[in-house]
């Protein structure tokens, strides 16, 4: 558990990592992270987790698909 035990840290984890907090909220979170090792490690893990998940789940388009899509275009009259 986070020693401050307010529940707010955990609630702000997601929007902080997604960069959806306001500038003022970001300052508050970062002030807390500077002083709380537990939360800092959780946030770092979350951030790393997102990056790893994204890297693993991104699969480039098969090379021939674009030509198949281009063939769906309306022929010029």
């Amino acid at each position, binding site marked *: 558990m986070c020693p401050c035990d307010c529940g707010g840290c955990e609630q702000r984890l997601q929007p902080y990592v997604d960069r*959806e907090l306001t500038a003022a909220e970001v300052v508050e979170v970062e002030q807390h992270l500077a002083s709380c*090792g537990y939360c800092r490690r959780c946030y770092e893990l979350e951030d790393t987790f997102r990056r790893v998940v994204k890297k693993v789940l991104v699969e480039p388009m098969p090379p021939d698909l674009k030509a198949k899509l281009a063939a769906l275009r309306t022929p010029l009259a």
Partner: protein
Amino acid sequence: MSETQSESTARQLAEGARDRVRFEEEALELADQVYRVARRLVRSREEAEDLVQDTYARAFRSWRQYTPGTNLRAWLLRILTNLNIDRGRREQRAPDVQSLEQGDYYLYDRLSVDGNENLDEERVVERLSQDSIVDALADVPHNFRDVIVLVDIGEFSYQDAAQILDIPVGTVMSRLHRGRRALKQSLAESTVGGS
């Protein structure tokens, strides 16, 4: 000198054709990004290819409904997610409510069960294999998975994801939250070996 009616009609046709070609080219430029999202909304590569082709066929037919200057990638993804829902891929099991009760710090707490305070985050996450992540995402209920895929893989804002799925922003946030918790719990259990 004012143009004749036939000159005016010819000019409009030429402008329409030019706008359409421009639309098609811009849409094709986004194909790789559209495919990446499609690939994780469905289970197989073949299904993803079909879905993207159906999306482009529909987009090319209804290109006039797109407002130039707005987010074309979001417009295409909206067609794609609607088609995916229409395809009736709704046979999945209902979410396991119990599995969604854990907090956001759950993965961290589970992976550091040995009480190692000096846990190296990179190493912990590296313990997760590629297959386990792919399987865990596929097992997340689709309502939650759609939001995770749009935000994490599509890199859409909460607002864009809300418009694409036609749901309120608050619903995007709660589905994202619950979906990621389900994902993390499934990964923690497959990695650490159950609770």
